[in-house]
């Protein structure tokens, strides 16, 4: 899984959806990956985060 900080617009939907996987940088508010290989328990939430990201900044696979 990867996030594209150049695209991210910091709306934070990913953090709201899967806080165990995503975080936002303290200084610029842009996305950070806490866990690049999230476990099965997070799969649905990660998929939802991909879907909800307004900037298309999260890729899985």
């Amino acid at each position, binding site marked *: 899984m990867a996030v594209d900080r150049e695209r991210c*617009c*910091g*709306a*934070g*939907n990913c*953090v*709201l*959806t899967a806080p165990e996987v995503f975080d*936002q*940088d*303290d*200084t*610029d*508010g*842009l996305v950070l990956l806490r866990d690049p290989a999230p476990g099965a328990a997070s799969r649905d939430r990660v998929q*939802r985060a991909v*879907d*909800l990201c*307004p*900037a*298309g900044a999260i890729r899985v696979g």
Partner: protein
Amino acid sequence: MTQTTQTDLPHWPPVNPASSPFALLDDAERLRLADQAVTRVQLPTGATAWLVTRHPEVRQLLRHPAFSSDLQRPGFPLLRPLPPEVTADSQGAFIRMDGEAHLRLRRMLTAEFMIRNVRRIEPLIHQTVSEALADLAAAGPPADFVSTFALPLPSKVICHLLGVPYADHDFFQSRSRLLLNRQVPMDQLQHAAQELREYLRSLIDAKRARPDDADDLLSRLIRERVEPGELGVDELGGMALLLLIAGHETTANMLGLSVLLLTRHPGRYALLRDRPDLAPSMVDELLRYLSIVRTGLFRVATEDVEIGDRLIRAGEGVIALLSLANRDPEVFDDPDGFDPYRQAHQHLAFGFGMHQCIGQPLARAELRVALVELARRFPDLRVAADPQELTTRDNSVVFGLDALPVTW
């Protein structure tokens, strides 16, 4: 030929009012517009634009880089002609910018509004809500919920965040009320905007003259962006004004309509008090169901793009209709029903794409705290007016109630 086809086009914004504040459109009008994913409509200026009404197409449109938010671009779908001053006054207003210019300013604010920081200021939201509840209690019963609670609350919160001194809150509040009042003539409106702009400018100057380590948004941006030369003072003033305007009427109108909706079924209203754990998802369902940005989001195409089988040509205007997308039956079961248990996270009430509301963590927190505390403090709150007596702000950008008499 074009003349006759144009008069047949549906008008946008719609001419006939909806039958209730919770029906998005007049029934016949809705049938006609929801019939296709993309429909040509006629604007009050006589120009035409494409109205996009379904969830997938609205997402596609708002995430596509070939649509501009810059209302000075030729072809931008306007509801009324632009006043001439707009160019000089638009510094810092990144909601109307595209690409790098937009991201440059937006990114200076993303950390301020991220969830973690909003959590940090939650005590401040609680305190402001308590004060507003006390004001409501002192004003009635009965009292107007909109002017005593819903409008002052977000304005006070943004004052605290920006670092507006307490002594100036009344000035700030009265001028921003004017800005939101549709009855006020254009010249008074522009005067109020000018006063606010000048006030913010002098506040910024004062903060710069007495540098300190104050922990508010303006002081931080001055230290980190203005003094190093990355950001102009007029840009900062424009950003502050945008935050004030974008977060004020939206949050206020959500509060008023939410109370009207929830108190119609006492069980729902009681749910806020008895199941506060449900409140976050209920807030999202309220955002979806009420979809207050009802005239939609306006853009102009900068290239030819296909949206929902329609070729939109460069230079043509488009309107993303968030409200109908939020009632798309392919995405939401029983879309016209309000369901407090629904997981409505796919709603588009905050928009989508690079301009998606930057204030959404703050808006969600304000709505949740305000509604839960209201239900605790006023468990018997009810509307003290017949539904038909309530007037709505139909064609303003943000839909809402003019007033909401309540008693308890």
